[in-house]
Structures are given as C-alpha cells and as structure tokens.
C-alpha cells in the first residue's frame, strides 16, 4: 500500500511517500525555522503564508524522489489536527484536491498518532503488535505527554503537561539566555562542557502524589514547566553576571531540569503499566541528554528502548503516511479528511483516565 503523507500543522511543510506504513520512499520537508527565528517562536501568520508557496513544491518533490507515479498512490493522508488552524488548512486543502483529481481516498491523520507511528519508521523496530504495550514519551514544541499504546489506534493517555510543552520551555529558556531559536538545539550546544548541577532548577510538580487532574490523569505522571522558566528568569535577575560567566553551566542546568523531569515521569509510568518497551518521539527526542537518560532508564527496568530515527523526530510527513498505513493494514481504517481540528485529541476525553 502506497500512501502520500502531507503535513502542515505548524511551521514545517512536508510530503512523503511511505509503503505499507513502514518503508519510506521519500520524505520532503521545508522547514521555516529561519523565518520564525527573529521572533523567538512560530508566528502563525508567517507559517500560513509560507505553506501556500511550499505545498506544491514539496508534494511534487516527494513524488519525484520516491520515483512513483501519482496514479500509483493508494491514498493521500493528511494531518487534520491538532495544530495551528490556518496552517492545517493548507495541507488539508492541498490533500483533498489531490485526492479528488486522482480519484483516491483522503484520510485524516492525528498529528500525535503520526508522531507515535514515527517510532516504527526505524527499520530495526519490531512491528507494532510485537512492541505493544508500548510506553511513549511524546515531547515536542507543541506537545508533551505520556501515552500507553496498546495497539494501533488504541491509546491511553497517562499524563500530559499542565502548562508549557517541553520544547516550548526550551524555547523560552533559550530566549532568556539570549541563545536564539529553536531552543532545544541551541541550549544543547551551549550546555556542552557546562555543569548541569550548577543550579538545581525545579522539576515542576516533582512531589505531587495521589492527586488527579480535572480529567482524571495522575499528576505524578504529568509535567509542569512554567516554574522552571520563572526560576531561570529570577536567577538571571539575581545573578546577572552568570549570563556571561556561567552560560554553559546555566544552559546545562536548565536542560537537565527539563530532561530529568521527562525521564522521571517516564519512569513512574513504566512502574505502573505493563509496558516493557519504551519509545520517545517528537522534536525534543533528538536531545542527546534525554536519549542517554532513557537508555539508562530502560537498562534499569529491563525495558526495550525504541528511539525514533533523528530525521523523523521533528515534524515530517513520513510519519503521517506511516500512521495512516499502519491503521489501514491493521484493519482499523482512517477517517476521511474533511475539516481541520486545531485541538483534535489523541484519546477521547472520557477514556483519558483509562
């Protein structure tokens, strides 16, 4: 089964051709990072404008790279949420038009499910049925959550961020440290050789026990990053010289606080679920310090660790085509892509508590 994936939920315009949910024949990504860098974050209006020009270029490139004909495609799969609505609409409209003229179905893919499917783009990863139950730490600029994958299309939300996403927290920290954008890679670079114990930044809700969120999630498996950002702000106010003299130490300490709280909640989840396989997806999954922590965690709990290939951590369309392909092959099917839903949940609200 040959699926063309289209992704435009945030600041990347992407298209990819994937066979049978796993084999990537092409993956074209136009990243807009340079356009958003001066603003220290994604500007939705800039993103929408760029998607319009990028969509036809990227889609044609995906087909050319894959060396397939348009009519070889079995379906077009497009991210229909969650994301920025004005950005989602570009990919959705392009995909629907392609499907219409090709006479092929157009499937709507949940962006978060696509990130989960990215795990299986590693040719060495086992098939989903063998990897499940799978504990997935999903960490990006827009999302941070812990999900138990019981099978393709069958997910249980264990925890989520109570405020900022991990990547967003790194962006804000990098901004405060004057390091630029995007935060994850610039902080990682600045932290090299720094002392990660220089400042003990808070791990947000570290000591919360036996408390639930309004939608029934255990707070001990949730994240909170807003206090961390404030702690850095106050540290810089109280020790202005540190920005010059201890930049590497501050970057390392800040990164440590983010990655440590991610690993800590993943460990708690590993203890309470039957999952013996751990995966990490999303842009923050590129972080070497987080990867090292998860390797250590997996070793201590005799769990298997599946790390998404670096090329498929940040937003791409291979994972979108993969998610649709995996569902189709599992016999679950995909919903038709009709509307953009900026707050599309991975798991329906009433089953969030499991």
């Amino acid at each position, binding site marked *: 089964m040959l699926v063309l994936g289209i992704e435009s939920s945030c600041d990347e315009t992407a298209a990819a051709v994937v066979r049978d949910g796993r084999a990537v024949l092409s993956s074209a990504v136009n990243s807009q990072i340079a356009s958003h*860098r*001066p*603003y*220290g974050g994604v*500007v939705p*209006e*800039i993103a*929408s*404008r760029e*998607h*319009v*020009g990028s*969509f*036809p270029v990227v*889609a*044609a490139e995906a087909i050319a790279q894959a060396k397939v004909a*348009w*009519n070889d495609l079995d379906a077009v799969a497009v991210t229909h949420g969650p994301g920025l609505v*004005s950005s989602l*609409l*570009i990919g*959705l*409209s*392009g*995909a*629907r*038009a*392609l499907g*219409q*003229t*090709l006479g092929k179905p157009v499937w709507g893919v949940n962006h978060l499910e696509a990130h989960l499917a990215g795990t299986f783009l590693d040719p060495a990863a086992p098939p989903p049925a063998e990897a499940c139950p799978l504990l997935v730490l999903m960490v990006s600029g827009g999302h941070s959550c812990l999900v138990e994958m019981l099978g393709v299309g069958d997910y249980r939300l264990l925890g989520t961020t109570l405020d900022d996403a991990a990547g967003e927290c790194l962006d804000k920290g990098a*901004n*405060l440290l*004057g*390091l*630029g*954008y995007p935060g994850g890679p610039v902080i990682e670079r600045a932290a090299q050789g720094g002392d990660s114990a220089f400042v003990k930044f808070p791990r947000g809700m570290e000591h919360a026990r036996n408390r639930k969120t309004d939608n029934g999630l255990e707070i001990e498996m949730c994240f909170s990053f807003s206090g961390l950002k404030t702690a850095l702000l106050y540290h810089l106010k109280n020790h202005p010289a540190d920005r010059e003299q201890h930049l590497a130490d501050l970057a390392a300490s800040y990164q440590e606080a983010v990655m440590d709280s991610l690993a800590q909640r993943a460990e708690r989840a590993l203890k309470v679920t039957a999952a013996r396989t751990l995966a990490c997806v999303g842009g923050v999954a590129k972080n070497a310090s987080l990867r090292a922590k998860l390797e250590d965690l997996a070793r201590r709990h005799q769990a298997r660790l599946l790390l998404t290939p670096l090329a498929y951590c940040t937003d791409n369309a291979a994972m979108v085509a993969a998610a649709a392909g995996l569902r189709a092959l599992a016999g679950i099917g995909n919903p038709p892509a*009709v*509307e953009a839903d900026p707050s599309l949940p991975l798991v329906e609200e009433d089953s969030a508590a499991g």
Partner: protein
Amino acid sequence: MNANRGREAAVFFVPARRAKIFRAPRKTARVPRMKTLALEFSTDAGGLALLEDARVVAAAAVAAGGRRSQELFAAAADLLAGAGWTFADVGAFAVGRGPGSYTGLRVSLTAAHGWALPENKPVWTTSSAAALAAEIFAEQPDAARLVVSGAARRGTIWAGLFGRREGRIGDWRLLPEDARGQAWPDAHWVAPDRAPRAEWVGRLFCAGGASEERQPIYLHPAVVAAPRFGADGRPLPPA
C-alpha cells in the same frame, strides 16, 4: 505586471459573448477547446465557474468564507458533474488572489495547486479586484476609471484604481475606513457590496496575459511588531 496590462484590458472591449461569433462551428472544430475552472474566494460571496475557451459554461456561488472554506471541494465536484466534466477535462485553473479573506484565498489557491499538480496543469492568478473592474467596465461603457475597494481590517480599507485601457494604475492603497470615496475623486468608486466573481477571473485568464504571483495579495505585513535585536545581533525577549 506592465507587460500584461494591455492584454488584460482587451477583454474589456471584447466581451466573451461576442467572441462566440468568430469561433468555428462545433462540428468542424479540430482543436480541443481549453477548459478552465475559475475560483474566486476573496470574499464570503465566493464562487466557481467553468469556461470553455472564453465562454462561461456553468457557475456556482459558494458561501465558503472562514469556517466553511472546505465546502469548496463538494461545490467543485457538483459543478463539474453538472456540466458533464471531470477533473481530467480541466486544462487550467484560474484563481483570484485578492485582496480579501486570507483563508478563502489560501484554500482556493492551494486547492488549485492540488488539482493541477499530477498533470502539471497551469495555475494562473489575477487580482480579484481586476476581475471586478472588468465586470463593471463591461456594464458601464462610459466609465473610464474605477476604484475597487474592500475591508482590510484594523480600521482600514484597501483600494485600487483601474483604467479601462491601463488595468491597475499605481499601487494598492490602505486608507482609513471613513476615506471611502475620497481618494481619486475623478474615478467612480464601485459599490462596496459588489463582489468579484469567478466568471470574470476566468474571462481575464482566457483573454491571455501572464499570471501574477501564485500567492494571495497581502496588504498587511505578517507581523505588526518588529522583532527586537540586542547589540550582539541576537533577538531579544518580547518586551
């Protein structure tokens, strides 16, 4: 732009109805006719039109503003089916690019790109205001100059001056809302409730001329607040 203004103007003199007279009779026509799907979604009164050469075969109004932008797809399928056409028959796509509703313009332009991609069909664009000006010039044989305007949000309107022969004259202007009718006092201001129509986008395309950019017309910058930079050239946190 300058190069195609003369050609754009030609349609003002030769309305599509009269062009029919010069066409070869159907039976003996050897050259396949150019079939065009025209899209105009710069206002809530959006629409689609099918043209065969310069003749409008079918048209449909599609209220596809804002949240209803996706209705364009069903409307296009219905319009084609009603005319007995399929997407395979369509040889080119002509799109109005505003100024107007960002969502409508982006969705219609991207839809045209998607329909055109597999067979590399042309996607041609014009300003939507030029399509409206062409329609008004055809209705009002005495008018020499027209001003087309529309809401531009943030307390402003946009306006463009059009000449029967020259096409658009000068740049788009952003004016305070209450200045409607005051700029260009010698020109006739087109009533603000007149919306550009897909039929006329299609006719402008059939009259020839180069495509404009395949992007909506943006009269406001994407970001109002300029980014701030420190002495070292690095961006500063928002104030």
